[in-house]
């Protein structure tokens, strides 16, 4: 066999590290996804008590979910809260990121620190602190407190993602717009924002998912009569260990997947970090 034919195929021992890496990644991914897969598969089990592997196939539990007025109300409330929180934190987070990212002043540094603070504080501590503080006064309604808490929790993510997006754009484009006569505001609105559109979209998706799944802080400050869906499920499983919960969990995973898919259509997921 001559040398030309042999060189066309990389020898096995050179391919081995690549294959090992691929296999390692596959194992880790499976490990991460397996619990979710088990819950999703169990949700089709005709048995009422939670069991895996499922002994049959039925969509009965999804029908029961749709018929359960309390779960549907909790889902609607969670959705409404998540949409409002996402809108507010995307707006504030983007504005703060654009304003602060190039500044070198002490104030800018303080703002950066303050915005990232909710990530550092444990959820339980934040929940108790909000409860302690806002129970002193009846001036602010419970929904406003809940919305404010969710905006606080999602703002760091929006800020971080949009800042990363801005840093990846070319500063000179905005400067050339200003040198051609645009004011700073016009330059930002017509030049910078369209450039970081993908990052803003990714940030909004992340904020939505964070707010929709939030349970720890919400446990403390949820208003009466209207729990969010994660809080409802948390209380539900204290008393019942049945397949209905698996169906509800699968529904939440599907919503998250749809959001992530929409995000990947509009922006590369690599922009998230």
């Amino acid at each position, binding site marked *: 066999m001559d040398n030309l034919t042999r060189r066309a195929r990389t020898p096995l021992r050179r391919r081995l590290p690549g294959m090992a890496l691929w296999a390692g990644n596959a194992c880790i991914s499976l490990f991460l996804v397996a619990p979710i897969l088990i819950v999703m598969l169990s949700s089709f089990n005709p048995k009422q008590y*939670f069991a895996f592997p499922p002994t049959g196939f039925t969509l009965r539990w999804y029908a029961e979910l749709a018929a359960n007025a309390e779960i549907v109300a909790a889902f609607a409330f969670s959705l409404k809260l998540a949409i409002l929180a996402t809108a507010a934190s995307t707006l504030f987070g983007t504005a703060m990121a654009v304003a602060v990212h190039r500044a070198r002043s002490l104030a800018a540094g303080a703002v950066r620190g303050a915005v990232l603070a909710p990530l550092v504080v444990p959820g339980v501590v934040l929940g108790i602190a909000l409860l302690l503080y806002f*129970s002193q006064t009846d001036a602010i309604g419970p929904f406003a407190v809940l919305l404010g808490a969710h905006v606080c929790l999602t703002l760091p993510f929006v800020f971080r993602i949009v800042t990363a997006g801005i840093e990846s754009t070319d500063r000179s484009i905005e400067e050339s717009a200003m040198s051609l006569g645009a004011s700073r505001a016009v330059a930002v609105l017509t030049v910078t924002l369209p450039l970081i559109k993908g990052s803003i979209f990714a940030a909004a998706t992340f904020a939505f998912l964070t707010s929709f799944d939030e349970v720890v802080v919400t446990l403390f400050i949820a208003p*009466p009569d209207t729990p969010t869906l994660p809080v*409802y499920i948390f*209380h*539900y*499983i*204290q*008393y019942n*260990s049945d397949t209905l919960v698996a169906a509800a969990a699968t529904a939440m995973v599907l919503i998250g997947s749809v959001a992530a898919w929409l995000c990947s259509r509009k922006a590369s997921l690599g922009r998230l970090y």
Partner: protein
Amino acid sequence: MRNADMRCGRRRLLAGAAAALAAPAILRAARAQPAAIDFQGERMVVNAFGGSFGAAWKQYVIEPFQKQFNAQLAVVDAITGEVTAKVLASRNNPQLDVVILGDSGAAVLAQQGLFEPLTEAAVPNLRELIDIARLPGDVYAEFLFASEVLVYNKNQVSTPPTSWNDLFDPKYKQHILIPDLGNSVSGPVFLVHQAMLNGGSLTNIDPGFEALTRLKPNTITYWTSMQQFANMLSSGDAWLGIWSSDRAASLIQSGAPVALAHLKDKPMLFGNAIGTVKGTKHLKLAQAYTNFVLSAEVQGNVLSAAILAPTNKNAVLSDAAKPFVVDPRGAQVIDWAAVAKDMPSWLDRWNRTITQ
């Protein structure tokens, strides 16, 4: 002539019989339903637990009360730990008016003076409660009792255990679920009960810890959540477990291959308490609600659905619920105030010796 006489006599006999049959029902109704006061739409905030308990509570307590008393009840879903934290955090401006919670949390709140004591004048149904449901000073009242139970997987265990000592049998090696001390209500109950069975008591807890150390080879894990317990037992990973009676009943009724072991020794009880938060702005409504919850008819309805023992002497449970419920009269209840004092040292000892 004779026919008319007989008809009159029969009619009177029938009327008398009807009255005699109706009397207990009328008496029961008169006793069970307190004079409904019209609160004219006054609104207060209470809590309920989630899942099937919460559904039963809303059906048999919240909705009937709102109708009968013309009041509005805003319901927060919260369990013992959350309720305790919320009442402690909002003590200057209570966000909840009447709370229901496990008596472990109620003891903590009572120690902090956060309850408005109940009085027989305002809450007459207190007189109908069994002795162990009332507390000195009536700071709160227990409205239900659950018991610790031993449950086993029917497919894995052929001869069910008959005594607590069967737990130490080596054939159960690595297959028993024991409640974790810090993370479940059953934990301290089991520890104290084991201490008592081995010659100790709540204040002399060493025999309890020794028993748990002896039990270590048989333990598969120290469970911390209801879901974890239900999954491990119904899948057969664990063969036996110590649980609470209402969760066991719910799992058995949903068809899992699990059964209750009938033990010779009486189990220990732990209850749920209802209390009025100090500083509430709706005291009269709170007292009417508390009285409603402690009434025989309401307890019979909601606790038959939740499968728990009532504390009103006159409450009657459905036949479906009776097999799972232990008669609270004559059983022992754990003293949570005393447990709360010793808990930190027990937890420390637990983490060092048992879960190591």
